[in-house]
């Protein structure tokens, strides 16, 4: 774990700062969201495993704004034990915390005839267990503070189990359910829990997908997510039309779904 020793400008009543942690920030939706949050005046702790990309992103954002708006921490989300201490340090560095975003996720392609526990485990560890490791201390913190916002980047993929990605679907379904439970737990304490379900987004994650239909740029997803955060929504699809597509897909009877190949 390393960190750039840049000082974030301190907040004042007339120059207030929202403070966020973004886990899984180095590329894709995470990187776009990092830009978006910094553009909107947030001070953000960016976390990711890939040091070089993260440093590049940090420098890019800070030089764009001519001041330190983001700081970064190299972190592997499967290093569960390090989370409580790291969270404490980040809150001390940020001077508080208003928003927590879990965006770390991998989709490892598995063939239709592939049965590979290691691949499945990796997806469960990064997409789900990493989220749980963070959401527990963050949930407790926000419950104590009686304020805060949790954003979980899940996926439309969590809505059905499909032939090509059993573990990915499972990890996202579990994350969606977990976030729902947190919403039910924490709304009464004034905490907002937003579940984001992206469809295809043009990122590295879908580079092997043959025909990613309706794929939107990561910046568009980040824009939708930020808007939903501001409106303190509970759940969004990005792009929005996926809500209707998924309504249909969710309702395809199993005897038909078994015959489909996607």
């Amino acid at each position, binding site marked *: 774990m390393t960190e750039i020793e840049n000082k974030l400008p301190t907040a004042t009543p*007339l120059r207030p700062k929202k403070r966020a942690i973004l886990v899984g920030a180095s590329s894709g939706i995470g990187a776009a969201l990092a830009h978006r949050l910094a553009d909107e005046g947030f001070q953000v702790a960016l976390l990711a495993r890939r040091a070089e990309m993260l440093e590049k992103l940090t420098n890019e954002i800070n030089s764009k704004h001519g001041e330190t708006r983001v700081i970064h921490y190299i972190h592997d989300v499967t290093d569960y034990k390090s989370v409580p201490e790291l969270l404490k340090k980040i809150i001390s560095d*940020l*001077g508080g915390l208003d928003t927590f975003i879990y965006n770390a996720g991998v989709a490892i392609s598995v063939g239709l005839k592939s049965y590979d526990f290691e691949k499945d485990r990796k997806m469960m560890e990064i997409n789900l267990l990493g989220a749980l490791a963070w959401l527990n201390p963050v949930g407790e913190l926000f419950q104590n503070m009686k304020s805060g916002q949790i954003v979980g980047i899940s996926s439309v993929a969590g809505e059905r189990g499909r032939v090509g990605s059993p573990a990915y679907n499972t990890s996202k379904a579990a994350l969606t359910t977990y976030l729902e439970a947190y919403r039910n737990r924490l709304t009464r304490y004034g905490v907002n829990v937003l579940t984001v379900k992206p469809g295809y987004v043009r990122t590295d994650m879908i580079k092997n997908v043959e025909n990613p239909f309706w794929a939107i740029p990561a910046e568009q997803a980040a824009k939708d997510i930020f808007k939903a955060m501001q409106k303190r929504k509970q759940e969004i699809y990005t792009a929005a039309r996926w809500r209707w597509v998924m309504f249909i897909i969710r309702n395809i009877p199993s005897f038909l779904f078994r015959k489909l190949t996607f």
Partner: protein
Amino acid sequence: MKKLTLSHLGNFSHSLDTAVYHIRPRFVEEITEIFAFARENDLKIAPRGAGRSYNDAALKGGGIVLDLSLLRCVQAWDAETGILRAEPGLTLETLWQYILPDGWWPPVVSGTMKTTLGGCLGMNIHGKNNFKMGTVGENILEFDAILPNGKEVTCSPKKNSKLFHAMISGMGMLGVFTSVTMQMKRVYSGLVNVREWNVPDLEAQLYALLDGAPRNDYIVGWLDGTARGKALGRGQIHAANYLAKDEDPDPAETMRVDFQTLPDTFFGVVPKSKLHYLMSLGLSNLGVRAVNTAKYLVGRNKSYQQPHAAFHFLLDYVPDWEKSYGKQGLIQYQSFLPKETALDAWTEMLKLSQKRGLPTYLGVTKRHRPDKFLISHALDGFSLAFDFKITNNNRAKLSEMVQDFDKIVLDAGGRFYFAKNSETAPEIARQYLGNETIENFRKLKERCDPQNLLYSDLYERVFAPLN
């Protein structure tokens, strides 16, 4: 120490909030343990009394707020000499209630009685008698403190004099007070003689303070920030004097605590705990203008007697008054100007605020004299405190305006106050405090707190960048 969790904490004026480890020691000995805990966990500490500062002085986001409000014992009280020794968390409210029945009153009090002794010393507060009794620090005989470097010190104007004059006014950044010995003021009645009169403009207001100060024990002005043109800076002056010996026919009665206690209802009808809801309806440019105009027009030259508590603690008259400023809270902007330049500078500032559609909703003027404390706000002149309501729409405009104010005040040789102003930039602080003061403070900080354990958000914002 038991497991600590972060909790939500804001400032008095509801303009800042953050997550902190809020620790309330019950014994002085715990302070050393908290220092050790902070060191082990790489956390910073902001000491806090009652948390009545209008800025980030008693906050440390993501760090420890060392709340001293439970250390509030009166350790010694001599009703013959009027010397009191108490722990730093003792509030002025408990203090005056403790000593008044014996015929004493705190020599210097803030506009609220909720403040603590430790907080009063840390910010070196002043009252409506600054021109006469100085700041609170000038009435402190001695204090004990624990420093982050592990030392326990006793300071008085003669012993450890340098540290005495720096810890008082040092915003809690050099050490933590553990005991304060203070000389009280003898009074012969629970009442003060008050006279109030209108002043038609700023010049008359400042002249009234200048002329009235030598002849009164207390003097304070209310300024109507919405009045324009020839009436710019108009307002009301309140001057008060202690009663002479034997002037009060029944001092034992007027010095009873019950006699002093502020009423619970407004006009005998409206419960005062709900009054801030009503006030919030009037807190717009138009509403304040109407209320201020009415207040000015009904103002008459009159004299009356009033209990000490009622005269001094106007801010406590409406409980939770700060909530009437709404969810975004308020900022207070207080500037101190030499008597020679005050009129022109404040005329310019009042005009500017009106031109930009950001009139102050409350203006308060006072008369001051300089003092010997290191981070001093006082000078031979006046102060003017402005309250501004914050809204989501006016933040940027307000921010720009207070920066313009800073320039005007600095050009006029003025000073600022770290219990009030929330936007003071490091360079502004350097300009009015001077390099020598900054350097002296830095050296003391290095000596008392080499690891920078005491590090409030205020210190981080203003002083850390200057080192």
